[in-house]
């Protein structure tokens, strides 16, 4: 692999690049924005959406930046009139291809209201699209002033959403067939649960012969949700609850296995409403598994222990901290006095934070006076 430095001209600036980089990578490295929809970092480019097209001097057609290798002395325009017009057309065709009922600019030609009503009937709610405000198509439609009614709406709008699994809602009526979910499932997580199915106008993302996800090889890692740029794949638990403008993101570490994936907790009104993977973070680079992505709501269970309890016969009664802690200390002291500190033993928790384990071993060693402290290191 050669690491040779070359230069090309992008929007009039001379930019250095390494051979092997794509035009998109060169632009990103120099802070020049190029819109993308189908490109998923770290996977092979599919060139499905063409929204990343740029104008390259000497090339007959516009070229997709995500899959065109940079070459020395290339002269590239990323936002020329031709480029902008092409992107607008692509976006308008995508808007017309499904139930994209967000308030993107449209002419007042009558069918807008009727369209809204139809979508709301399909969604069985008058709520906004679940991806509203967090949709790349919506964002680009605004940026390029694409109209949603330039082209006739296609039939896909009629496809019903798949709700038949506990975690993921697949809304085919909003799918733009960018293929990012397929890349995420096959190239990132390598679960091979979904792929492109059918051809032409019937194209659809399918799981194992067009079956519900629940009957496929899907392991509900949710990588595809995180990859979907629109509202076609959303977390069932967060659908219509999570809204980007209410969201407060907190970075933390997964409480389950020893990989220690980095998570965003999406908190609204003091509650975690969804979890996503932190992109570009070590060790997981945005990836999570089913436990990390969907295993968060136990903390709000009504069964949580909320008050100290003291045994009374076969039952427990509620107690104050003062009473419970005094009782523990008194009983421990009595055992220490009568039988010595080694008659007390403790097991720490391999799920809790370091500081808790430190504190517990300190309690046993320094305050009680025994090394009888262990944890489930072995399970």
């Amino acid at each position: 692999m050669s690491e040779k430095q070359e230069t090309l001209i992008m929007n009039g600036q001379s930019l250095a690049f390494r051979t092997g980089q794509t035009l998109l990578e060169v632009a990103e490295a120099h802070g020049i924005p190029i819109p993308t929809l189908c490109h998923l970092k770290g996977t092979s480019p599919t060139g499905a959406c063409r929204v990343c097209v740029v104008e390259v001097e000497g090339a007959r057609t516009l070229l997709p930046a995500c899959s065109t290798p940079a070459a020395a002395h290339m002269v590239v325009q990323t936002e020329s009139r031709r480029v902008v017009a092409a992107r607008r057309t692509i976006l308008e065709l995508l808007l017309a291809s499904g139930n994209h009922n967000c308030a993107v600019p449209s002419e007042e030609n009558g069918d807008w209201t009727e369209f809204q009503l139809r979508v709301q009937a399909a969604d069985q709610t008058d709520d906004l699209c679940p991806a509203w405000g967090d949709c790349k198509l919506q964002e680009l439609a605004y940026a390029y002033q694409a109209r949603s009614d330039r082209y006739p709406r296609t039939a896909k709008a009629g496809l019903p959403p798949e709700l038949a699994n506990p975690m993921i809602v697949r809304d085919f009526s909003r799918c733009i067939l960018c293929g990012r979910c397929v890349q995420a499932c096959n190239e990132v997580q390598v679960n091979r649960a979904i792929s492109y199915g059918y051809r032409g106008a019937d194209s659809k993302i399918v799981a194992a012969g067009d079956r519900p996800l629940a009957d496929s090889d899907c392991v509900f890692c949710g990588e595809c949700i995180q990859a979907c740029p629109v509202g076609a794949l959303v977390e069932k638990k967060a659908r219509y609850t999570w809204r980007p403008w209410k969201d407060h993101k907190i970075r933390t570490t997964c409480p389950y296995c020893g990989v220690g994936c980095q998570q965003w907790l999406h908190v609204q009104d003091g509650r975690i409403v969804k979890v996503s993977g932190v992109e570009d973070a070590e060790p997981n680079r945005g990836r999570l598994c089913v436990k990390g992505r969907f295993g968060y709501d136990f903390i709000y269970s009504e069964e949580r222990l909320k008050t100290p309890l003291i045994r009374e016969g076969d039952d427990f009664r509620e107690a104050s901290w003062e009473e419970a802690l005094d009782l523990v200390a008194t009983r421990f002291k009595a055992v220490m006095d009568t039988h010595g500190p080694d008659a007390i033993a403790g097991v720490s928790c391999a799920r809790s934070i370091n500081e808790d384990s430190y504190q517990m071993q300190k309690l046993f060693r320094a305050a009680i006076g025994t090394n009888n402290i262990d944890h489930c290191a072995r399970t």
Partner: protein
Amino acid sequence: MTNSFNEFARAKMFMVIGSNMTEAHSVAATYVKNAVAKGARLIVVDPRRHALADHADLHVPLRVGSDIAFLNSVVQVLIEEKLYDQGFVASCTVGFEDLKEKVQAYPPETAAAICGLDADLIREVARRISAVKPMMLCYTLGITEHTCGRNNVLAVANLQMLLGNMGVACGGVNPLRGQNNVQGACDMGALPNVFPGYQPVINPEAREKFATAWGVDRLPDQNGLMIPQMMEGLVDKSVRAFYIFGENLANTEPDIRKVEHELASAEFLVCQDIFPNETTRFAHVVLPAAAWSENEGTFTNSERRVSRVRTASPAPGLARPNWWIFREIARRLGHEWASDSAQAIWDNEIAVLAPQFGGIQYGRLDGDGLQWPCPDEAHPGTCFLHKDGDFTCGLGVFTPVDWTPPAEQPCEDYPLVLSTGRRLAHYHTRTQTGRCDGMNDILGEETVDMSPHDAAGLAIAQGETVRVRSRRGAVCAKARVTDRVPRGMVWMAFHFREANANWLTNPVFDPVTMTAEYKACAVRVEKV
């Protein structure tokens, strides 16, 4: 782990032994699969043909508990055929001659009979793993949860040292830790023989240092008890008071009937947890704790990375942080501790007392955290250990070990071997995942996984409820007939109380580590 997850995707060769990575460490497995997609070689050594084996060049379906025979035999071939790293062995290790002598007893034909493998497959493995360098070795509880668990670990280390795969990126010995903070709990000295940072309690200087820091005259100088010994102590009354923090021992330890008898014998039992569970039933005092996202703190993952844990919402009711509870008890025992937050505990105590963490401060942990050893504040942390053959004790020491079979062998009455583990959608005894919407829909009950051959022999149909019986107990669950499980094996998890495999498992332990033999006991399967 000696190495890091970011090396997985770049590795050229893996041997994964006793690790159902796609279910137990899913995200780690994605990197292995990424590497394989880019041409890396993968050898999966496991009695079960679990999902990762679908991506492997070679699956070695050895008999449960025959790992040492297999590994010693591979070592024997490597030495016999001179395929090992002679330079590394000569300059960075000691004890090679002992190893060489030991493995003479394990030629492939002998090992093949013990492992239920073809002798040529063993030779093939040796040739393949020596053909690509470095090879990254990963293991999990399939190695440790045996009465010979410690020896298994030594056999694995022998192999990697012999191949010269230590101290290099994309190599090393990499045990994936089961629970999110097992690494951290060990690092923090929640072990009967070491203070934080693995400083031995029998070392007078270490005791002196901690005694001064903690403001006490003296600290106990004898190693303490391990969990199985504590439990037995409850019955023989050498342990009078028992404090269980966040573990559901009544479901996680082998032989539930025995464990519950032990818990019921406790004179005074304190349980500190976030939910009532099977263990808190035996408590005299239950203390309600703040959970994961109700705390500030740190976890340390398998690759020794210390990462932040942050508060998203307040704890319910009167529940309090665990460190606060311990501090309050210490206060009542006459000890006033200054640190009054997790950050103060880390920055002012842990980082000061344990040299490995000396350079780790909360202020440096935003972003991706730091991997220890990180001795000073300018240190960037350590991706992989033993760089350039630099082992903690100087040279890498080969420790030859002999194969010993699992304690309980199949027999006429109990002809099958039960092996246990974890399934993807649940975590341990389900106190958490069982209370998350949707998780029980993905997996709602335990199954008895068995081979088509054994199922046919017993006339058991897919989904039929069967009884599994061991010398200790019996449970009923639906049969899941699958060719991923080999003949002669039954496989179950411990996520559900009713059909918990631990009603059946054998409470025998590795004599040194006291790890239980969860991976092998004798059972029979009956129609109900």
